[in-house]
């Protein structure tokens, strides 16, 4: 558009200004929500790290919170449980999702129906699925013990609770990872498989020599998503076992939730300042794990 006269140019300028205002107004609501819901809470957290804050009054306590954290065995244990849970979940969910994706990708009948079923748990609220599994795992009248006709205390024995929690996590999440792998495999050219076939590769060889290496960029992203999401899970555990028995299935973010909002079982005052410190520490732990993973996966890259 070329304006040759002065009138045209002012019209153009005015139009430009209106467009700028419109663009600002269109971006405005999202930015406002970003500020309120993400940026503000993030800095709010730092404000109370060194305070004793119960929701009404705040006292500066210096490094009291930090000293308390160092001696807080429940929190230290919950860090361990978080790592334990994340390890179980990732070790089960990634191989399972990959295997299922490979099977679904082999072109058998009914693929889309299987995919529909396997993805289904991911649309159910983790709070409701936690509740459903608490019925399934119930000791005296749960359906699982009914079927195997035993009385295994899945949710009330320290030896079994992690298994129950992991089963729920895998059930609720593997459909997502399966889908990532299928999408990744769709990106592998059929010619490569053709060539492998001509060279006489069998199914196992094809998987390890073709599918897996060609899928490695996707696998890397998926593993990172799996790690970050496993470390921040707590909703389902909160409903399924409440972190119990004892603190056996207490993960970091569930422990923190109880500090900040109080728990359903013991009505104590919220300890928000201490919770803020632990939130910060937990976020740093997750960040370090993610960075470590990125470093390792890069190292592996240069080796292969």
């Amino acid at each position: 558009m070329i304006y040759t006269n002065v009138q045209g140019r002012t019209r153009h300028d005015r139009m430009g200004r209106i467009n700028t205002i419109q663009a600002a107004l269109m971006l405005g609501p999202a930015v406002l929500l970003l500020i309120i819901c993400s940026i503000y809470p993030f800095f709010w957290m730092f404000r109370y790290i060194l305070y004793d804050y119960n929701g009404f009054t705040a006292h500066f306590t210096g490094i009291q919170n930090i000293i308390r954290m160092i001696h807080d065995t429940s929190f230290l244990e919950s860090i361990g449980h978080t790592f334990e849970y994340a390890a179980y979940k990732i070790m089960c969910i990634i191989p399972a999702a990959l295997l299922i994706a490979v099977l679904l990708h082999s072109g058998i009948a009914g693929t889309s129906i299987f995919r529909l079923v396997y993805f289904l748990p991911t649309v159910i609220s983790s709070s409701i699925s936690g509740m459903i599994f608490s019925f399934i795992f119930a000791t005296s009248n749960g359906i699982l013990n009914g079927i195997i006709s035993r009385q295994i205390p899945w949710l009330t024995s320290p030896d079994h609770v992690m298994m129950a929690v992991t089963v729920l996590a895998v059930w609720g999440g593997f459909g997502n990872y399966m889908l990532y792998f299928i999408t990744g495999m769709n990106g592998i050219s059929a010619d490569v498989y053709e060539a492998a076939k001509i060279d006489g590769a069998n199914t196992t060889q094809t998987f390890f020599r073709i599918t897996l290496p060609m899928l490695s960029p996707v696998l890397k992203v998926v593993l990172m998503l799996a790690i970050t999401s496993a470390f921040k899970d707590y909703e389902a555990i909160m409903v399924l076992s409440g972190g119990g028995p004892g603190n056996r299935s207490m993960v970091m973010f569930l422990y923190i939730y109880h500090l900040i909002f109080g728990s359903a079982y013991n009505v104590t005052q919220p300890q928000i300042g201490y919770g803020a410190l632990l939130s910060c520490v937990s976020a740093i732990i997750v960040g370090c794990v993610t960075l470590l993973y990125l470093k390792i996966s890069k190292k592996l890259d240069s080796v292969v």
Partner: protein
Amino acid sequence: MDKRHEVLSSMDKARQAAIIVLLSILAVLVIFPVVYITLGSFKSRTELLVGGAKILPSVFHFENYVNAWQQANFAVYTGNSVLIACGVMVLSLLFSTMAGYVFSRTNFVGKNLIYGTFIMFMFINVGSISIRPLFELATRTHMNKSLISVILFSAGMGQATYIFLARGYVNTVPKELDEAAKIDGCSFFGTFWRIIVPILQPLIATIALLSFRQGWNEYILPLVFTMTNDKMRPLTVGVNMLKNSGDGAASWEIMFAGATIAVIPMIIVYILFSKYFMNGSTAGAVKG
């Protein structure tokens, strides 16, 4: 799947059958919890408390639903769930498509910084502490008396993914369309509304469904905001409150019915529009 590989489609029939059997067993296991809760919701209280291996109820007690709906307040919970889900959906659709369009089509100082901040906060996770300041903010502004606060904050916490999807999708729309609309006298917003929005239909469907699911399934946020107000609780919170309350052990049939009411509508929506759910879930992670 249409892209069958030559190598694999020549698999012998026996092997194919074995895989199908394996996958079918797995499918039954995956769907079992849903079937169990649905059929269990028709059992009598005694039958549920006794337990056992039977999945089918001996007699179908449809009155469980009547009781849940009338006495246990599930009519209110369901209404709240619908309200939250629809509210989050509308806000997410409006805000994220507009923001995605601006990010894709304009250039201004600080654009990358703002976009980067959106993406950064997708990865920073400090857990439930971030709900506390929002709760106090809502209390101070008296927004905690209605579900508007829950809807706003839920939309705000989920929007980054949708903006990311929207920006990516608008990037694939040829810029020539914008130019043509501009020459025809459309303003920036006019171009978006008349030209881009109609093209974005698949994206709009994806964001609508993902955000509806997000709102419907929201738990911690409404749990905190409705701690003292039973009338505002959505299904996710209402059902779980029954479980935690003192007489929870006694009302298993109500909890089963409640969980079914919370799960089945979402499953129906999912089955009708599964394509969009799956596209939306992978688009962000793998293709990006």
